[in-house]
């Protein structure tokens, strides 16, 4: 863990953005998440780590109700964003997802032009009144995702023609274009090479200025590099949650220690 200098460890005491209480998730008879309590602070990067199948992605997908699309999935417990229950019956998941953006494991740009990829979200949410505003949003989003310089001359080229790292940054630009408050990232670097990974990690650190970022990762180095807080999941339980430096250097739970030292996983 020698690359932990990258991010300032001093965690500012931000207010809580998301608070989850007693969350249980079932896939049919399979109890995937068992009684998870977690508080995610605003303007911080929170990493979820843990072995495969431990439920970290499932929990992430609860935060913007992407699990609703899975028929057999059932979520219990209480998840609040800014004090509002997102599973309240009056909440429209579509509206919620505009507020809680998501970046997926595999870069999944729409098979459309780069411009249309970014403009799609603002268009369907009516964020731009005219073409000039839309152009502005597109440029701003691409700049934020640190990809503007590479694609500014070929905005009409298909987004699927970019390299893997560029595609993932395009997807991040697409996610920030709708001005979300929370950005969920499900293993955003697992399909990328080290250079692209480092670009995306730099980007995540940038995004912390404006958003609360939650990232699921398999790479403990990555969690250590980019996050301020880390949650360790194991077999559907939240084993340990705390400041990243604390978790990696001084884990309280023996399971956490075994995992970060490579004995389970």
């Amino acid at each position: 863990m020698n690359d932990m200098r990258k991010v300032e460890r001093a965690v500012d005491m931000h207010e809580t953005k998301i608070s989850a209480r007693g969350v249980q998730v079932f896939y049919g008879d399979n109890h995937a998440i068992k009684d998870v309590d977690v508080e995610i602070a605003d303007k911080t990067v929170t990493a979820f780590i843990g072995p495969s199948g431990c439920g970290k992605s499932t929990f992430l997908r609860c935060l913007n109700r992407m699990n609703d699309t899975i028929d057999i999935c059932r979520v219990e417990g209480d998840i609040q964003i800014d004090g509002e229950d997102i599973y309240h019956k009056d909440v429209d998941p579509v509206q919620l997802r505009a507020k809680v953006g998501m970046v997926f494991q595999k870069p999944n740009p729409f098979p459309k032009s780069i411009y249309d990829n970014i403009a799609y979200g603002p268009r369907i949410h009516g964020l731009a009144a005219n073409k000039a505003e839309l152009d502005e949003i597109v440029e701003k989003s691409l700049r934020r995702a640190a990809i503007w310089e590479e694609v500014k001359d070929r905005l009409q080229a298909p987004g699927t023609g970019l390299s893997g790292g560029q595609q993932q940054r395009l997807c991040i630009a697409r996610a920030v274009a709708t001005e979300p408050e929370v950005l969920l990232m499900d293993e955003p670097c697992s399909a990328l090479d080290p250079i692209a990974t480092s670009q995306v990690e730099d980007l995540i650190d940038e995004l912390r200025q404006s958003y609360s970022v939650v990232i699921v990762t398999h790479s403990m180095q990555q969690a250590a590099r980019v996050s301020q807080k880390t949650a360790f999941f194991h077999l559907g339980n939240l084993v340990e949650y705390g400041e990243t430096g604390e978790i990696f250097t001084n884990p309280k739970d023996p399971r956490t220690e075994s995992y970060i030292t490579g004995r389970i996983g």
Partner: protein
Amino acid sequence: MTDATSSGASPMMSKPKRKSILEIDAATKKRNAAEKRFEYMGLAAVLTGLFFLIALLVTIIGNGIPAFTQTFITLEVELQEKRLDKSGERDLEKIKKVTTFGYNPIIQDAIKAKLAEAGIETEITKGKDLRKLLSTGAVGSLRTTVLEDPSKIGETIEMRFVAASRVDGYMKGRVSRESLARDKNLFPAHLDIVDALVEEGSIERTFNWNFIFGSDASDSRPEQAGIGVAMLGSFFMMLVVLGLSLPVGVAASIYLEEFAPKNRFTDFIEVNISNLAAIPSIVFGILGLAVFIQFGGGVLGIPGFKASAPLVGGLVLTLMTLPTIIISTRASLKAVPPSIRDAALGVGASKMQSVFHHVLPLAMPGILTGTIIGLAQALGETAPLLLIGMVGFIASNYPDGLAAGFTDPNSAMPAQIFEWAKRADPAFYERAWGGIIILLVFLMTMNIIAIILRRRFERRW
């Protein structure tokens, strides 16, 4: 294995028996032989298929091509005033009173004149027998010409007449003097006249547009039968099929694939759609007869729901095509990667937006291909049409107007082919093959369109 040089040091190394890879062992030999055998078997299967395909095409083309040419006899016809317009007033109503029967002597005289002019001797003396050189429809077409322009009465005009089917057959090598021995229609002497006229240049074989654009003709006039009206019937049926099965099929698939909850009920529907695709088409025919014609047209009295109407034919074929379209549409919707749906939902698109903005455009090539294949299937379907009465009558006229096109009794291409193949005269048999060529051309065109559309709309993701 660091101590490989110190042989015999360990018990493991005491057996240095190594097989050279240059020697092929028995098991490998056996495996290679099996692989080769399978390869040859596959090749043989493909070649067999190819052989049958070529045999089929050669037969169809060999038998069908003659239908596209037709023998015509050119005659100088004197439109005798004393027979056509005794009063000399050129009153159309009075001229109309002369039936085709009255035109017979004129044609007979024209043939006699032609023979005299060409100096052809013949033992046939009766005008009635001479007339058999021409189609029985010849008088009708002469009468039509006269009625179109009565001012020509009294003049001598040159006209091309369709030759009788036996004469046509003789020109195509289907009819010989021997085969006429048992035929009451034509005598060998007729063929002598034909030979002489060919030399003289009054008989010619030209491309038969009437076969493509004309209408069916009665049993006695195979030389005048065409597939044009049946083609139009098929066209109107396809309009119905496309207009109904595409929207209904695509909507049903989108619902089932994207929106429907997975439960017993939707499972049940799914199984039944697959079953529907396997139902013999004749069952759809009898269903159409019972539901559309007997109940819809008979009990409810819906206009247009009557036997032989392309509208009903189209509805029956729609029922048949729907499962095909639903199955292929669902397959292409399934083939759209879920990551695209996730991406759309992730930026806050609603379910419907994600389907219509992203999934459907990507599935479009597959949907179009499935639809066209379904249509092609429907176009070639005969069995259900037999039951709703789209055969067994002569669809002799083009429907007047669009609405009539849907509701007027008509036939369809495959039904017309079936009808021709059923008739006794070999001239009809030839036309059945010709009809098959036209049908195949249509099917091939549709398949090519499907391929082009798929290529055009295909996108990478």
